[in-house]
């Protein structure tokens, strides 16, 4: 049984301008001991997916349908009491900006101890010892001194370490990291990524890493989900996604970033990011896709298995499959659609 299983998740936000389908039919499952990367641009729904798992959506957002199972236990509709036991204990989260996620008026020690005492039955003394132990684990120097300091006295990298210490204090099964290093400098980012990777191996937890940086994904992740406009375009092992991309958006994304060897021109994805209030009827990427066919505009693509480690939702794969005779022509489709 997978540790986390998400099926056909729909999360909508109700705004004055209309209904925003931030997550629109996301399904994936996750085994123990893996690092999963979710990549996508702003508005692709990668953060909202994470917030939906934690059920910490803003007031105007709600999970409309779908299922989120943790170790077989259904979380959607389970109620706040169940979620309180899940959050922090079984699933923890760290956020992009370590300054705004820490309370500026309490010391680091008080905040760490509060989290520990809330989730476990430790006494104050035990919580203090555990907090110091956690600070040591995340390589914070002089942990005893840090316990008495306030967040503003620490650097950005140090604050993010404190956040990680807090998130890991109750030994969660899943750590969701939402752009954990985006606000940090490159050399500090390297420290934090190294720390997360070694803690993941040591504690055997699952990390869901949400990022827009394909470099971070290549370095950290075992598996990757690529999202666009609230749905999953492509999902597979990190090597499959980088070396055998099977969705036009992923291909475009990989062509548009400067790599180590290039000297030639970058190939940007044309157009502008999608407006979630005016979603197209077919594949959401079709308006920006250079190879879009008639069918792409008519209806969204089904997710197709490329191989055991790889699925993608792109009509191009259907066309290729038919051309190669691997897929039998569907009666509903008109011949002219695949052009």
């Amino acid at each position, binding site marked *: 049984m997978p540790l986390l299983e998400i099926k056909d998740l729909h999360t909508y936000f109700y705004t004055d301008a209309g209904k925003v389908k931030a997550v629109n039919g996301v399904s994936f499952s996750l085994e123990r001991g893996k690092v999963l990367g979710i990549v996508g641009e702003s508005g692709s729904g990668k953060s909202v997916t994470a917030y939906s798992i934690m059920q910490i959506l803003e007031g105007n957002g709600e999970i409309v349908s779908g299922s989120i199972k943790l170790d077989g236990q259904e979380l959607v509709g389970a109620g706040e009491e169940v979620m309180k036991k899940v959050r922090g204990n079984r699933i923890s989260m760290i956020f992009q900006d370590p300054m705004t996620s820490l309370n500026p008026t309490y010391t680091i020690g008080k905040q760490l101890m509060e989290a520990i005492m809330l989730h476990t039955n430790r006494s104050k003394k035990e919580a203090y010892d555990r907090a110091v132990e956690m600070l040591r684990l995340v390589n914070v120097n002089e942990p005893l001194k840090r316990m008495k300091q306030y967040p503003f006295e620490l650097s950005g990298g140090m604050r993010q370490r404190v956040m990680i210490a807090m998130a890991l204090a109750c030994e969660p099964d899943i750590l969701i990291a939402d752009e954990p290093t985006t606000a940090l400098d490159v050399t500090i980012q390297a420290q934090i990524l190294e720390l997360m990777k070694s803690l993941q191996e040591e504690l055997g937890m699952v990390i869901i890493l949400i990022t827009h940086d394909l470099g971070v994904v290549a370095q950290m992740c075992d598996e990757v989900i690529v999202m666009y406009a609230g749905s999953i375009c492509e999902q597979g092992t990190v*090597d499959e996604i980088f070396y055998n991309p099977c969705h036009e958006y992923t291909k475009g994304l990989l062509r548009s970033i400067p790599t180590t060897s290039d000297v030639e021109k970058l190939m940007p994805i044309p157009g502008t990011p999608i407006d979630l209030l005016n979603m197209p009827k077919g594949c959401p990427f079709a308006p920006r896709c250079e190879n879009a066919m008639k069918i792409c505009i008519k209806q969204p693509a089904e997710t197709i298995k490329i191989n055991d480690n790889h699925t993608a939702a792109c009509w191009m794969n259907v066309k290729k499959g038919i051309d190669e005779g691997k897929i039998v022509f569907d009666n509903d489709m008109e011949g002219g659609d695949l052009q």
Partner: protein
Amino acid sequence: MSKNSVKPLVEVENLKKHFDINTGFLSTKPLKAVDDVSFSINKGETLGLVGESGCGKTTVGRTLLHLYKPTGGRIWYDGREIRTKEDISYLRRKASMVFQDPYSSLNPRMTVSDIIGEPLDVQKKYTNKNERRDRILELMNYVGLNSEHASRYAHEFSGGQRQRIGIARALAVDPELLVCDEPVSALDVSIQAQVINMFVELQEKLGLTYLFIAHDILVVRHISDRIAVMYLGKMVELSDADEIYNRPLHPYSKSLLSAVPIPDPKTARERKRIVLSGDIPSPLNAPSGCPFRTRCPYATEECATSMPQFEEVSKGHYVACHRVNEIN
């Protein structure tokens, strides 16, 4: 500085910018944001400036255009030293700036045509209204905006398009030099590439010279001819873009480059990373001698006592490190 046959467009010698920071009642302390930085930019070239937050790269750009008054040092533009008010207004007609955040650098109450037209008004670059309008449309055309966008407001545009408006505004004065301060870091990856390509095309078309300030080394390497690396207000290395990328000599450049996440899983797995310990010191309490010595794996006593000279070690490759010959 090197005496090449190409005449540099901009020359900067021992540029200093110190800010006075209040440390208590009636007491201030100088924050050496930029300290003794020397470099030159050739005509038509792109000089990339990289470094981490607080290293002074933005201050270099702003001081270069006299948006901050330099504390010390000299700046020449096209052979003319910039000292008096007249010099500064001459410089401002020749050079302009593109800012990082396309959300806060555009006036929300002005239409696109007024945002782009404002520098034209200030510099009195037109004789009648038609000329002004034509120039605005020409500028919008340069950056890939349609004429129908002219009467809209900034909030109606996406981040990438706003950055295009900012670039059109910077181009309004017909500059030779553009100082671009993190122009693509607020944009999504797929949009970043569009804007980077536009910078390259504009350079070819208009013969622009760029000082391209950014923290993303892969982007800087893609666009730059030469790259300068800064750390805590000092320039530690300056060289040809490929040379510095493939053969960095300063220990800080080495670790900075090895820390960049490479979007290629196989390379990422095989690569040896130099992970620096510790944080960047506060520029208010910069270490004595070499600023990098507190995190440098090769630091010796000499590094604590004297600041290494910024010297040319091979043709066009400048490094400020006492032990550059031993560690490479």
